[in-house]
C-alpha cells in the first residue's frame, strides 16, 4: 500500500529537473566541505571533532546546571528567559507580547526551531504578519513550502522557479537573473526590517557563562533582525547551550566548514541582553525562549541522547545517498536526511513514522562527516529494533523472519549457496508480491555473467 512517504519519494524520483537540482546542489556542498576540512587546511580536524563531541556530551550530562547558569546571566544583562514546554507555549508568549506592545509585523531570520513549532502559521492565524528574511526562506515562504534542506532551504528551486513566484506574488515580471532577484528581495525586505515591531531569530549557540546568544549567517539578515526592531526574541532548544565562549572556537571552526566549506560564516553575532546605556542600536527588550518540545524525552534515553549534539550543519544530508535521491520534502517533518531520520521518530513517536529508520542504506557516510561525531547508523539500528519490538510491529513480520532464517541456513550450506547463486541470475525477472513494491523505487545492479566462485576456479 503506498504511504504518503512512498508517494512523495516516487514523485521526487520521477522529476528529472528536481533530481538534477538535488544532485548538483548537494554535490557542490559535499565538494566545498571536503576541501575545507582537508588535512593540509585543517590538520587538527579529527581532534576538533572529538573535542566537540566531548564538550556536547559534558554539557548535555550537566544540562540543568548550565541552563540555570545561562538563565542567571541573561537576566543579569537585562534579558528575560521564557521557558516553554511545547509549541503552544511559545506562540502564546509571542502573541501575548505582541498584543501588549501592539505589534503587527514580525521579521524573522532563518530558524529550524521555529519551523519545528510552526510558529509562523500560529502567528498568522492570529492576524500577525511574520516575514522570513533569509533569501532562501523568503522564497519558500512565498511558495508556501517548508525548507528543503536545513542549511539551504531553497535547494530544490531554480532561478526560473524564483522568477515565477516573484511574478505571482510580487508582480515583477520574468526576472531570471539571480543577482537581480537577490536585489529585489533585498529592497522588499529592507522596508519590512524598518517597519517591523519584533525580530525573531533562532540561536546557533547559547553561552552559559556570558548569557550570549550566538547567531551565524552569511547575508546580514539576522543582524538586521536583531538591530532594527524594538524587541528581539530568540527561540532556542535547550540543547543549544555550551559552557563558555572559549568553547565556541571549536564549534565555529567545524560549523562553517561542514555546512558550506567556509572557514567562518560571514557574520557571527554575540548578543546578550537588551540595548545598554549609551548604545544606539539594539532592541529595548530581549527575550530568550528556551524550548523543550520533546527534547527531555530524548535526553532520558542514554543510548540515543547523542542525537541532541547536532549543530544543524547539514553535512549528513549532502553526503547521504538516500537524501540525494528522495530530497527534503519526502521526509515527514522539517528535519530531513539522516539527522531527520533519527530525531523525527524520537520527537513525534516512532508509531507515527515507522518507515523512517528504514530509509537508509546504513552506509555510514553521515557518521563520517558529522562534525560532532553522532553515530547516526547506531541510532537508526536502535530505532529499527524499537519498531520491530514495539507496539507498531508490522503484521507481515513472519515473512521477514522466515527470510532471515532461510538466509542464515543458506550461509551455512555452501552447496546450496552456490546453487542459489545460479538462480539469482534470474532475479531481475522476479517482480511479484512484496518484491514489486520494493523494486519500484530501486534498481538492481546488473548481474555479472559468472560468479566470483566460478572466476576463482577458472584462475586455477
Amino acid at each position, binding site marked *: 500500500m503506498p504511504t504518503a512517504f512512498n508517494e512523495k519519494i516516487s514523485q521526487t524520483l520521477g522529476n528529472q529537473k528536481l533530481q538534477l537540482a538535488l544532485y548538483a546542489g548537494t554535490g*557542490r*556542498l559535499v565538494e566545498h566541505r571536503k576541501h575545507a576540512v582537508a588535512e593540509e587546511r585543517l590538520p*587538527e580536524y579529527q*581532534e576538533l571533532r572529538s*573535542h566537540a563531541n*566531548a*564538550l556536547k556530551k*559534558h554539557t548535555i*550530562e*550537566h*544540562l*540543568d546546571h548550565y*541552563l*540555570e547558569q545561562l538563565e542567571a546571566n541573561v537576566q543579569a*544583562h537585562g534579558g528575560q528567559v*521564557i*521557558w516553554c*514546554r511545547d509549541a503552544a507555549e511559545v506562540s502564546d508568549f509571542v502573541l501575548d507580547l505582541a498584543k501588549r506592545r501592539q505589534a503587527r509585523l514580525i521579521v524573522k531570520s532563518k530558524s529550524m526551531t521555529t519551523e519545528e513549532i510552526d510558529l509562523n502559521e500560529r502567528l498568522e492565524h492570529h492576524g500577525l504578519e511574520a516575514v522570513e*528574511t*533569509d533569501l532562501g526562506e523568503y*522564497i519558500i515562504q512565498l511558495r508556501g513550502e517548508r525548507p528543503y534542506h536545513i542549511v*539551504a*532551504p531553497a535547494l530544490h*528551486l531554480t*532561478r526560473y522557479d524564483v522568477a515565477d513566484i516573484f511574478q505571482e506574488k510580487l508582480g515583477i515580471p520574468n526576472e531570471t537573473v539571480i*543577482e537581480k*532577484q*537577490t536585489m529585489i528581495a*533585498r529592497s522588499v525586505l*529592507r522596508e519590512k526590517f524598518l517597519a517591523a515591531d519584533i525580530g525573531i531569530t533562532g540561536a546557533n549557540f547559547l553561552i552559559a557563562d*556570558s548569557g550570549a546568544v550566538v547567531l551565524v549567517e*552569511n*547575508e*546580514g*539578515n539576522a*543582524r*538586521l533582525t536583531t*538591530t*532594527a526592531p524594538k524587541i528581539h526574541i530568540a527561540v532556542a532548544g*535547550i540543547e543549544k547551550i555550551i559552557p*563558555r565562549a*572559549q568553547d*565556541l*572556537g*571549536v564549534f*565555529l571552526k567545524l560549523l562553517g566548514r561542514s555546512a558550506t566549506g567556509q*572557514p*567562518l560564516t*560571514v*557574520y557571527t*553575532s*554575540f*548578543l*546578550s*541582553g537588551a540595548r545598554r546605556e549609551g*548604545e544606539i*542600536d539594539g532592541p529595548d527588550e530581549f527575550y530568550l525562549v*528556551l524550548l523543550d518540545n520533546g527534547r*527531555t524525552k530524548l*535526553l532520558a534515553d542514554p543510548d540515543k541522547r547523542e542525537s541532541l549534539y547536532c549543530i544543524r550543519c547539514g553535512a549528513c544530508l549532502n553526503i547521504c545517498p538516500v537524501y540525494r535521491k528522495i530530497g527534503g520534502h519526502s521526509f515527514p517533518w522539517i528535519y530531513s536526511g539522516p539527522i531527520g531520520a533519527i530525531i523525527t521518530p524520537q520527537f513525534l513517536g516512532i508509531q507515527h513514522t515507522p518507515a523512517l529508520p528504514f530509509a537508509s542504506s546504513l552506509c555510514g557516510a553521515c557518521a563520517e562527516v558529522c562534525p560532532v561525531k553522532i553515530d547516526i547508523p547506531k541510532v537508526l539500528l536502535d530505532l529499527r529494533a524499537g519498531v520491530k519490538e514495539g507496539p507498531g510491529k508490522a503484521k507481515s513480520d513472519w515473512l521477514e523472519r522466515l527470510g532471515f532464517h532461510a538466509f542464515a541456513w543458506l550461509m551455512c550450506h555452501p552447496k546450496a549457496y552456490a546453487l542459489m547463486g545460479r538462480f539469482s541470475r534470474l532475479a531481475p525477472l522476479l517482480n511479484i508480491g512484496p518484491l514489486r513494491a520494493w523494486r519500484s523505487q530501486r534498481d538492481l545492479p546488473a548481474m555479472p555473467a559468472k560468479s566470483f566462485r566460478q572466476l576463482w576456479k577458472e584462475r586455477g
Partner: protein
Amino acid sequence: MSEARNDILARVRSATGGAEPDYAERYAALPREYKREGALDFEGKLQLFADRIHDYDGVLHTCGKDQVVATIAAALSARGKRRIVVPPDYPEASLPKGFEFVWDHELTYEALDQCDGVITGCTLAIALTGTIVLQDGLYQGRRALSLVPDYHLCLVGRNQIYETAPEAIQVLSRTGARVTTFISGPSATSDIEMTRIKGVHGPRTLEVIVIC
C-alpha cells in the same frame, strides 16, 4: 511561566540524574588537543590575513602610521566613493580632504543607505579566518553602521591582529558580554542555484587597511 521552568528543569534532572557536583573539574579535564595558539610572527600573520581577505575578493592595504590618511584617500578614490559616514568619535584629523564625511549622530537607516560607504576601526582581527571583530568600542560606531552602507573600509592596528579565533575569543571574553560581531568578508548568499551573490543585506565590499 515559572511552572514551565520548574517542569523542564525537573524533566532534565530526572533524565540525566542531575549535574555532578564536580562538573567544573570534569569540564576542565576535557581533552583539548587542537591548535589554540598561533606561532606566527607579525609578518606571517599579516600574510595569512591578506590571503584570507583576498579569498573573499576583498582588498588589504598596508601602510605606515604617517600614511593612513593618504591610503584612505587612495582606496576611496579607486572605487569612486565620495560620501562617507564615520562613527561619531572618529577624529577629523585622520580623514583626507576632498571627500564628504558625515558623522553618524544617530542617522536614520535611509540616511545611512544614502552614503557610499563607511570607515570604522575594530576591536581586533583574526588572520586565519580573515575576520574583523567589531564591538561598540572606539571608532567602531553602532551596529547598523557596518551593515547598511554598501562599502566598508576597516582600519586595523598592528597589535590588533591575532592568528587564531580561540586566541581572539580569549581576549574578547575579558570585555564581558558586549554585543560583538565577527565579520569575515562581504555579505553574501548562495540560496539560488548555489550561485554566490554579494551584498544581500549588508555591504558588497569589505576593504582593510593594516597600519604597520
